[in-house]
């Protein structure tokens, strides 16, 4: 003791884990000779991330068979696809979920829900054979070392659907990969085809090529930007020509790491001050506002300086704006008054994609079309507005706000929150969950707690469902109408990708048994059949979430933690 020693190790490198470890030099050379890579300006890539490196480490070559589903509508993906040979077909209409192996949970009637009480299996996770393997018009097929879903009657399905053929040189899936948006169409291999799959990190690097970057941005501007702007409630009275002017002037920016969940466990343990300091700054308190910021995806923290640190005042999610109050004040202020600076800072929590609309454009094309009653009040000397905002947050103590952001709980759309001052720990919620899931509870009453409120470890049906990224068969998906994230067990191959990706550890892998208690084994590998299990919000039950219904003390609620007003309202009512 008493001597200080150092350990010399190699710093992890950017490409320590290539997308496809089997990529060979000849593959890279072959890809380099193909369009659009052959036309790319290699000089645009820095020495640390050359084009060849991107092709070797961020790409993989996929050979797909006719009828193989490449991406499904509603999937969350982190990669884009470039067709090299053959062709694929995007189905523009909606395919029946059953054809993709997604069996919709049937809503039970009262009688069948009650009769299930007498049919509780004696063993955990009991399934019949047809609940384990897919039937109907889809099948899972092992193809190389990956499993894929195949459409059985592809021709029949395509005949009755509007489709778009995508051929060599064309790219698809890039918007979902870059902006963490759900896939908007199902793409199926039309014939035997060869694709290059590029993960989003590689796609961002490829954007260094000016032609590709312009093409990608143009695609986004043409297909998506106007839709995003139209979805913004404040812009609903803007004439089409003004909206177009706004779209033309809008800048697209991204902050933070899209794969925030991979280092979530490490960052959440940082002290709050360090955590906030480590978050990329989107807009800084005290600077003059230059743009109106619109959150496109991800989360951002609104904070202000407080003593030697930063105090969290709110958090923003998709569709929220930042800087409007200051812009409105500066636009309508008296000419003899000085413009105000931003009252708070905005920082990316994990990652955030923003649309930046310059203030001149806001003043000319946006503000005249917003009702005065919808505009924030001017900022007075004692800053009434700031106090009003703080009043909303005051029901949610600052410590809890910091805690929610630190633990990324603001991601939860249906988070299970328990008031520990009312909870008698009777576990009626867990028993009810078990009752509605054939004796298999989908959560345990545990989880992080702050100020007498526990954020229980049950699936939160997140706004950014990172569990869905990487599922090879699309077995875990979000219901397009209810937003419920559920596992379609028949096509779940038990790979555990979703369970490993869920930063909150709310997905469990379980072995399956038949009604006699015998475990199912894979006939070829001889390994037990595993399936991902999680809270499904009791979709099939007539009552909705049984946990919430069963609490006798009004202590448990399923709540959208992305909406601060909901939490504030619940906290104020429970006192």
């Amino acid at each position, binding site marked *: 003791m008493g001597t200080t020693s150092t350990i010399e190790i190699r710093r992890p490198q950017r490409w320590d884990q290539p997308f496809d470890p089997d990529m060979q030099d000849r593959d890279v050379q072959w890809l380099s000779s193909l369009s659009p890579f052959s036309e790319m300006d290699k000089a645009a890539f820095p020495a640390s991330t050359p084009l060849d490196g991107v092709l070797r480490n961020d790409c993989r070559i996929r050979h797909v068979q006719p009828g193989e589903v490449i991406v499904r509508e509603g999937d969350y993906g982190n990669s884009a696809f470039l067709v090299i040979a053959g062709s694929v077909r995007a189905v523009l209409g909606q395919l029946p979920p059953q054809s993709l192996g997604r069996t919709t949970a049937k809503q039970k009637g009262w009688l069948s829900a*009650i009769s299930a009480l007498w049919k509780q299996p004696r063993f955990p996770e009991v399934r019949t054979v047809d609940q384990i393997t897919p039937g109907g018009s889809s099948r899972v097929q092992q193809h190389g070392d990956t499993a894929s879903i195949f459409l059985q009657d592809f021709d029949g399905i395509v005949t009755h659907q509007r489709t778009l053929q995508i051929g060599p040189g064309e790219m698809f899936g890039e918007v979902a990969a870059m902006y963490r948006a759900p896939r908007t169409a199902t793409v199926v291999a039309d014939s035997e085809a060869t694709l290059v799959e590029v993960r989003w990190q590689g796609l961002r690097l490829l954007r260094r090529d000016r032609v590709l970057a312009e093409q990608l941005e143009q695609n986004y501007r043409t297909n998506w930007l106007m839709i995003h702007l139209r979805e913004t409630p404040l812009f609903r009275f803007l004439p089409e020509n003004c909206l177009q002017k706004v779209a033309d002037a809008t800048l697209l920016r991204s902050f933070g790491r899209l794969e925030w969940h991979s280092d979530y466990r490490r960052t959440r343990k940082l002290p709050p001050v360090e955590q906030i300091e480590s978050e990329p700054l989107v807009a800084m308190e005290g600077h003059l506002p230059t743009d109106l910021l619109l959150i496109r995806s991800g989360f951002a923290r609104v904070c202000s300086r407080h003593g030697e640190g930063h105090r969290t005042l709110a958090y923003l999610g998709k569709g929220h704006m930042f800087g409007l109050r200051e812009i409105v004040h500066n636009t309508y202020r008296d000419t003899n008054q000085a413009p105000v600076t931003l009252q708070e800072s905005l920082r990316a929590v994990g990652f955030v994609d923003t649309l930046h609309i310059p203030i001149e454009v806001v003043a000319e094309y946006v503000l005249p079309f917003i009702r005065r009653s919808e505009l924030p009040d001017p900022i007075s000397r004692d800053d009434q507005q700031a106090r009003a905002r703080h009043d909303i947050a005051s029901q949610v103590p600052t410590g809890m706000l910091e805690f929610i952001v630190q633990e990324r709980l603001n991601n939860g759309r249906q988070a299970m929150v328990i008031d520990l001052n009312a909870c008698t720990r009777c576990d009626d919620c867990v028993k009810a969950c078990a009752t509605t899931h054939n004796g298999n509870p989908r959560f345990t009453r*545990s989880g992080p707690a702050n100020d007498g409120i526990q954020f229980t470890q049950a699936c939160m049906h997140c706004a950014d469902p990172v569990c869905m990224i990487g599922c090879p068969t699309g077995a875990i998906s979000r219901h397009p109408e209810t937003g419920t994230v559920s596992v379609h067990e028949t096509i779940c191959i038990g790979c555990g990708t979703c369970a490993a990706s869920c930063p909150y550890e709310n997905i469990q892998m379980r072995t399956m048994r038949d009604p006699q208690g015998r475990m199912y084994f894979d006939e070829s590998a001889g390994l037990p059949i595993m399936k991902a299990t999680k809270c499904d919000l009791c979709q099939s039950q*007539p009552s909705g979430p049984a946990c919430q219904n*069963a609490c*006798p003390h009004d202590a448990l609620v399923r709540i959208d933690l992305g909406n601060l007003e909901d939490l504030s309202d619940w906290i104020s009512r429970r*006192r």
Partner: protein
Amino acid sequence: MLHKRTRRTIALSITAIAVLIAAVATWLIRQRLGHASMATGWTLLASVGLLMLLGLRKKLVMLPILPVRVWTQFHIYTGLFALAIYLMHVPVVIASGFFESTLSLLFLSVAGSGLYGVWISRRGAKRLTAIAGEYRFDRFGWHRRTLADRAAEILTEVGQTGDVPVIAQFYRERLQHYFSTRPSLAYVLVPTSHRKRRLLTELGELDRYFATNVKQAAGRLAALIRTRDDLDYHYATQLRMRMWLAIHIALTVAMLVFIVVHVLMVLRFQGA
């Protein structure tokens, strides 16, 4: 959604009005020389029937027939109403004779255990939250074993550094039993910090005999003693919150048997 206090005020007001209406009706029947006890008896029986519905609702959690929390509130205020009707129904609080006095005692026990349940549910939950730690009831045994193992590990670690007879003797005589056994029935009924304070005092008094490294180990043992006391407090409070319900249900079943016999006897001798 209404604030909890507002809901409580409204529910208490409605219950008070219902009791007042029942009292006036009973008084009017008595004024007309009618059988007020028949009216209150049937009202009481109907109330008991309504009170029973909560148990049924809890079993059928999958049905969309108002959440259990609403049924619980209904149960509490119907229970208060039933208690008031009982006082109007009986000539004296505890009736005479073996059968009737047993029924009275059973009713009052059910009502008393119900009121205790309301009190412990509200107070116990707050107390549990105030004490450090959050433990699931099915995991108490595991937590106790973990603490006992950690205490033994500390002693083993410190034992490897030299001669430690004082702390080893104290561990053997006082701590081993404390960590390895469940809390006593007396502690469960009335959890106090007396045992924790006594152990900490005794450990503190030995401090002068400890070497520096043993003092550090003693500090860690003291932390474990506090943790174990918190764990026992959680266990005692959670156990009482579960036991009252079991007792409440058992008394209710016994009361129902007596009520059925009581009603049959009343119907049999109604005209006599």
